[in-house]
């Protein structure tokens, strides 16, 4: 029987507890959002055996998750013990340091910090959550926004970032007071108290903290004070930006990330005049920032370097390219630049609320600069940029959902989410799509089509078509392969099956008569000893042969193939489908037929012991195997035997026959 209570709020606190803000929806409408929050006093501080907190806290916290009573005593500056309280910028920039096994002090993560990290970068947030679950790390999440003593309201004209910094500082000072309250002086003597240290790479924040009397260090200074054994390795992990991290910029509206296309008429005119060149866009499998377009004017394909020069072209599109002057031509790079690795911290959500380009553009430019240095001048190729798309060749792509881009991985969540779908083929960019079924699609292969790619969006947008099944299950993988290579594998439709002869299985060659259309122009070769040789288990026997000695001493040899034209007439649905399929595809356990099985394995198969319609070529040759005569004719044959290779070989080798 659980306890159900009503959360009461004193009247006077209404201002504190209602958050009002304006939000711009994706369509550009401004709506007012009011959220309430309930402040409580039973939020635990997380320190083991804290008298105050265990008295008021309702839930039993498992002891392995709480922080040790004196924190960590290893540090040179804090010999009485300390806890580390990192600021948001530490998690954003120095995640590797935090994740390192050598970084041992107990960490207090504030709710404010977690929410800021989540807001800035979802993949980093996921790493933070993973960090909290590691056994060796002692991490405690303190919900300062819910605690009545540490909750902070935004002042007039205070930026959200400043408000968050203030909340962090307030929580740090609360912790220090709390620890001293939990350990009152014993016998009049003050006990040595562990300190809670604020780690921040933001100089302004550090200054304000110091003026409030808090202990505050930058990550580098902190690591320099750590014991020698771990110091050197940890110093390496510290990320390099010497300058301070910029606070979140205010919304600046959608930015133009790509140049606009020229109008179609200009493109066609340009191609005709020879100033622009047309060709198919080929992405580089190993470097997502590079592509090439083979054009008739040059014998080497035109190179396109950089996202903006590739200008939203997708593998297979027909594009119009403008060539740079020869002194700007570059050579192809050898470097492997992986989109997933470079952009792994990018969020799926639209960038209409935050100007996130900086991080991603910087990452990309770093990648470009790195490989620019390695390009060899000798192997220069014509280089240019795409100014317009002549024809899009978008289709459905097999993808899987990027699990780091999910905002809510709860399996029953019904909310619509924007996620990344990564195509299986490395030639394609990640696709952004919105779906309500994201959690149930994780771990499945899905089919996604691209709808559009605006110039203000880093990624193309698409939608979910259907799911193929669990990743690595035989059916899903098979289906995904077939889809990737455009092999049609659906069963034949009714229109096609209607083209088959109505007798179906029981169709036989009609008895010989001069009037029957089937017998017109056909030679009767049913007496000949015709046989076929095929792999064991073969159902679709398409050819047969015979040979005999003629009375005049020559040899007559003949090859007979199934006469499919009797059943497949030009311009019928069956003909069109077969033309589209092109061939029968043989998989390990399956066969995908070009023509319905009735034809392929029965009526058009030169089976033994039945009569079949065929088309024959008959040679007459002398003992030297020189061809004396040849004739082609439609025929009717009756195969006497269907040999396997082995059987045929045995017969041939047998001296008695």
């Amino acid at each position: 029987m659980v306890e159900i209570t009503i959360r009461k709020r004193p009247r006077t606190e209404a201002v504190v507890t209602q958050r009002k803000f304006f939000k711009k929806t994706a369509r550009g409408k401004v709506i007012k959002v009011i959220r309430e929050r309930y402040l409580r006093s039973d939020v635990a501080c997380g320190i083991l055996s804290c008298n105050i907190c265990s008295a008021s806290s309702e839930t039993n916290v498992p002891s392995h998750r709480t922080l040790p009573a004196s924190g960590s005593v290893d540090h040179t500056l804090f010999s009485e013990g300390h806890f580390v309280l990192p600021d948001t910028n530490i998690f954003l920039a120095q995640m590797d340091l935090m994740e390192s096994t050598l970084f041992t002090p107990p960490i207090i993560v504030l709710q404010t910090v977690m929410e800021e990290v989540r807001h800035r970068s979802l993949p980093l947030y996921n790493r933070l959550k993973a960090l909290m679950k590691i056994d060796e790390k002692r991490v405690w999440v303190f919900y300062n926004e819910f605690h009545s003593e540490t909750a902070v309201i935004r002042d007039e004209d205070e930026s959200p970032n400043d408000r968050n910094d203030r909340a962090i500082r307030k929580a740090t000072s609360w912790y220090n007071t709390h620890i001293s309250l939990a350990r009152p002086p014993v016998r009049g003597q003050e006990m040595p108290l562990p300190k809670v240290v604020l780690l921040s790479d933001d100089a302004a924040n550090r200054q304000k903290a110091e003026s409030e009397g808090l202990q505050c260090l930058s990550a580098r200074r902190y690591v320099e004070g750590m014991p020698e054994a771990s110091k050197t390795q940890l110093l390496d992990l510290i990320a390099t930006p010497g300058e301070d991290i910029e606070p979140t910029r205010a919304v600046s509206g959608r930015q133009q990330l790509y140049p606009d296309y020229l109008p179609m008429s200009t493109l066609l005119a340009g191609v005709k005049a020879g100033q622009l060149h047309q060709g198919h866009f080929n992405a580089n499998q190993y470097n997502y920032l590079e592509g090439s377009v083979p054009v008739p004017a040059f014998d080497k394909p035109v190179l396109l370097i950089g996202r903006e020069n590739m200008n939203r072209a997708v593998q297979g599109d027909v594009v119009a390219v403008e060539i740079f002057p020869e002194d700007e031509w570059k050579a192809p790079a050898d470097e492997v630049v992986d989109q997933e690795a470079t952009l792994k911290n990018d969020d799926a959500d639209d960038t209409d609320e935050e100007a996130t380009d900086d991080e991603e553009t910087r990452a990309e430019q770093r990648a470009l600069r790195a490989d620019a240095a390695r390009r060899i001048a000798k192997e220069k190729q014509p280089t240019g940029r795409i100014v317009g798309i002549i024809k899009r060749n978008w289709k459905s792509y097999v993808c899987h959902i990027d699990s780091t881009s999910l905002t809510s991985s709860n399996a029953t969540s019904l909310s619509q989410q924007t996620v990344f779908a990564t195509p299986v083929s490395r030639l394609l960019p990640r696709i952004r799509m919105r779906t309500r079924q994201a959690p149930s699609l994780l771990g499945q292969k899905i089919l996604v089509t691209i709808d559009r790619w605006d110039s203000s969006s880093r990624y193309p947008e698409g939608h979910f078509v259907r799911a193929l099944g669990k990743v690595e299950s035989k059916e899903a993988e098979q289906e995904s392969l077939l889809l990737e290579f455009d092999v049609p594998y659906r069963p034949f439709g009714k229109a096609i099956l209607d083209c088959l002869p109505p007798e179906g299985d029981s169709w036989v060659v009609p008895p010989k008569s001069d009037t029957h259309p089937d017998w017109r122009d056909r030679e009767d070769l049913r007496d000949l000893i015709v046989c076929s040789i095929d792999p064991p288990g073969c159902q679709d026997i398409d050819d047969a042969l015979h040979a005999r000695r003629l009375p005049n001493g020559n040899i007559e040899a003949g090859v007979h193939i199934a006469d499919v034209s009797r059943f497949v007439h030009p311009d019928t649905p069956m003909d069109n489908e077969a033309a589209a399929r092109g061939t029968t595809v043989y998989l390990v356990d399956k066969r995908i037929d070009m023509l319905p099985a009735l034809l392929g394995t029965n009526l058009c198969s030169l089976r033994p012991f039945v009569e079949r319609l065929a088309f024959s070529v008959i040679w007459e040759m002398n003992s030297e195997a020189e061809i004396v005569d040849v004739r082609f004719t439609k025929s009717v044959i009756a195969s006497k035997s269907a040999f396997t290779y082995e059987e045929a070989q045995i017969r041939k080798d047998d001296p008695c026959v």
Partner: protein
Amino acid sequence: MGSRVEILNDDGYRSDGRRQYELREITIDLSQRGAADGSAMITHGLTQVLVTVFGPREAKMRSHTLHDRAVLNVEVNIAPFSTGERRRRTRGDKRVLELASAIKSTFEPVVQTSLYPRSQIDIYVHVLQQDGGLLQASINGTTLALVSAGIPLLDLLCSVSGGVHSASPLLDLTTLEENDLPHLTVAVMPKSGKVTLVSMETRLHVDRFGEMFRLACDAAKVIHGEMKKAVKARTQKLVNAMDVGPGAKLQGDFADRDDEMDMME
């Protein structure tokens, strides 16, 4: 736009600081409004609903009456400013009509209509602010308004909404949570435990339903306590204002008296 807020985080806190089984703050205002026979304004957190009741009175249209009982007529009016973005609803909006119809069928078995043949009881529900739990607030408000109008009921009908977040049941959902979770609303007569309404428009696994339902019924009883307190306080005020002679203030707790007596002034 994906939900950037966690519905229930690992430490058991919801997005607004409540825990799983905590209900939002409830305020009840039973003061008289205008010419209405009974009126109640109820707030669940940020959801605010005002219900006014007229009746039993002469029916507007003779043809609509029943010879042996009163007719319940419910009209719901959702104010355009009640949601985050301003939306005017047309008169015959199906969702609104469905809400009204749900409230009507919830109260049919509870209001003692057989005492007032050939009359009409009008219930007007005005939604002033919406933050989840609309049906719940409407039903609770209607109960209180009926009580305030003095119409005899079999019991105080209490309603609560609940949802399930990956096997953890939550009570009293906000809009954010309702958009994300399968949820249901339950209306219960607390004394007998009889249920007059269960409404669920999303899909929920059948194994989860039983637990959620029982929990919602228990929560309705908690709300019942809250409603009783408010009704008593109002009655107290009215009695004090009535100036019933020396020793006017009624003493002590009503707890010893028969529960049916609570309804009468």
